[in-house]
């Protein structure tokens, strides 16, 4: 399962940083203990030295015993005592009614050929308290550090990854069919992202070049086909005007003429498609679609012998900002499609609003996959005379103006819908 980098990074930090910090805390505690031990030792040796000096100066006339400070005992040769080492002990304080911990140090010293055992005392309560306080402070600091690191890390990551997300957004919005160039920051301030942007830009340029070549190929091929077609057409015209044309020959010539005509129309449509792709219809004006539909219906009725019954639900003065001839091609293709794929005594319903155009027509269901309906050269098997490019043209024009086009079939009705703009939410 994939998770955002930021979250992964935070998880990693939260998992391992406390372990490291805990280790550090333990180490710190041990070091503190060692330091305290050393300090107490130093303190005790210094005390011993001061007391012994005072003892020697006063020729032994000082108190031999002060509770919690020192003991001087003459040659009590006690074997069990470890000399010159720190030992723990407790002294009972009756006023406080409790025993307090002390560190003591015993040394054997020589004065006037007599051996004295000098033991000095230092309270270990304060140092213990200090260690606890320092330790708590340190733990608190570490927790704060942990929080700060995580927050800083998240903040800096977000900042550092910004160029990456900007690139992602740009690449995601990039549409090769729209002839736009991909504008990526060339200087992000991060070497890796600069490289990423360069690599993506190069890739897009290569893809663009390939796409452009392909488009150019279609356009050039279509242009080149025009001349041979013109030759065939002209020869056919000369041929049908030859004297002595028989019915048999006429029927052959009729078929050739039909085929040539279809080829010519196909070629014309392919050229139109590639021109739309190449953005060769830049002129945009306000087109009154309501009037246009009426006009197209009027002229289409002439072409068909059994034109289906038309029910118009057209809102007046629906205006689109688009190229006039492309809009005309779009609407005329949609309506013609509804006429051609209709049935005998069929019906067409045309709804038009500023938001959408919906053309419904009766007719047998499709033999082909509806998803492929808008692809080039897709047509239903029983239709042999159409070019199979009409709906591809519709799709292409819709793409150009970011209209969405969809097809549905239910209960014997084909529904072709174009949404010009999303209704305001």
């Amino acid at each position, binding site marked *: 399962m994939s998770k955002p980098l930021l979250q992964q990074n935070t998880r990693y930090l939260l998992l391992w940083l406390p372990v490291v910090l805990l280790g550090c805390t333990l180490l710190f505690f041990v070091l503190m203990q060692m330091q305290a031990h050393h300090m107490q030792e130093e303190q005790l040796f210094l005390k011993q030295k001061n007391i012994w000096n005072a003892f020697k100066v006063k020729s032994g006339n000082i108190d031999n015993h002060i509770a919690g400070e020192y003991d001087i005992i003459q040659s009590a040769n006690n074997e069990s005592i470890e000399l010159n080492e720190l030992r723990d002990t407790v002294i009972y304080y009756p006023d406080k009614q409790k025993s307090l911990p002390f560190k003591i140090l015993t040394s054997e010293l020589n004065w006037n050929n007599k051996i004295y055992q000098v033991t000095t005392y230092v309270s270990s309560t304060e140092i213990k308290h200090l260690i606890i306080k320092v330790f708590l402070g340190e733990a608190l600091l570490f927790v704060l550090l942990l929080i700060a690191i995580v927050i800083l890390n998240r903040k800096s990551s977000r900042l550092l990854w910004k160029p990456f997300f900007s690139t992602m957004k740009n690449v995601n919005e990039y549409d090769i069919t729209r002839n736009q160039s991909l504008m990526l920051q060339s200087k992000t301030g991060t070497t890796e992202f600069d490289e990423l942007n360069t690599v993506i830009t190069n890739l897009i340029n290569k893809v663009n070049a390939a796409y452009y070549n392909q488009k150019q190929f279609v356009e050039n091929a279509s*242009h*080149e086909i*025009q*001349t041979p*077609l*013109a*030759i*065939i*057409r*002209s*020869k*056919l*015209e*000369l041929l*049908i*005007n030859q004297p002595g*044309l028989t*019915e048999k020959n*006429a*029927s052959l*010539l*009729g078929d050739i*003429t*039909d085929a*040539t*005509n279809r080829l*010519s*129309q196909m070629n*014309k*449509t392919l*050229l139109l498609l590639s*021109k739309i792709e190449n953005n*060769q219809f830049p002129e945009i004006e306000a087109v009154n679609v309501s009037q246009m539909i009426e006009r197209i219906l009027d*002229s289409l009725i*002439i*072409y*068909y*012998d059994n034109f289906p019954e038309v029910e118009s639900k057209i809102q007046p003065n629906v205006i689109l900002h688009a190229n006039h001839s492309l809009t005309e091609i779009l609407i*005329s*293709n949609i309506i*013609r499609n509804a006429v*051609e794929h209709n049935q005998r005594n069929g019906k067409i319903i045309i709804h038009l609003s500023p938001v959408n155009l919906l053309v419904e027509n009766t007719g047998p269901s499709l033999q082909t996959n509806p998803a492929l309906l808008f692809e080039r050269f897709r047509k239903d098997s029983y*239709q042999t*005379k*159409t*070019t199979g*490019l*009409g709906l591809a043209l519709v799709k292409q024009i819709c793409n150009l103006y970011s209209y969405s086009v969809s097809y549905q079939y239910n209960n014997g009705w084909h529904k072709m819908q174009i949404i010009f703009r999303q209704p305001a939410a």
Partner: protein
Amino acid sequence: MKLLVIEDEASLLQSIMEYFEQIDFLCEGVTTYANAIQKIDDYNYDCIILDINLPDGSGFELLKYLRKYKKDEGVVIISARNSLDDKITGLNFGADDYVTKPFHLSELNARIKALIRRKYAHGIDILEAGNLKMDLAARTVVCENQILSLTKNEFNLLLYLINNKNRVVSKQAIAEHIYGDETDNMPSFDFVYSHIKNLKRKLKEKGCEDIVQTVYGLGYKLSI
């Protein structure tokens, strides 16, 4: 009428010349820019059919050359490029008309006839063919001294047939001539048939019977 055809595709050139020779034009054909310049320098023509893409030069250059030397031949451009820009450029350089390949020869003929009429008829817009008299300015047709009431499309259809009289005109050519780009991707041209039927009926009513004939479902012919 003298016609110069400039077209680099020899086969197409030959078709155009043959077609126009059959309807009594004097035709000369060249396939290159250099030859075209030579012909234009040496002779005068009534009309020039000009292809834009020539192997050694552009048709536009030729147009400029023509207009620079004040030659006022009518020029019809035939081009494989069906772009508005090319059309506008051509017309700006002084071309009179523009036809896109693959065109019908009958269409090219109709354009040339119209051009010649505009240029040389000096305002007389009456076209006579047999018993028919067409007034192109007033857009009326008189048959045996009776006025025919035709729709706009029927008028254009009759004019087209008269321009191509005594020749078979295919129904595709008629459809494209009358409806232009609207016929793109039309699966059939049956609507031409009903137009012809109406026209024939109207002609018959006024006594111009049987001048329009159907040729084996290929097309139609107006015989005079």
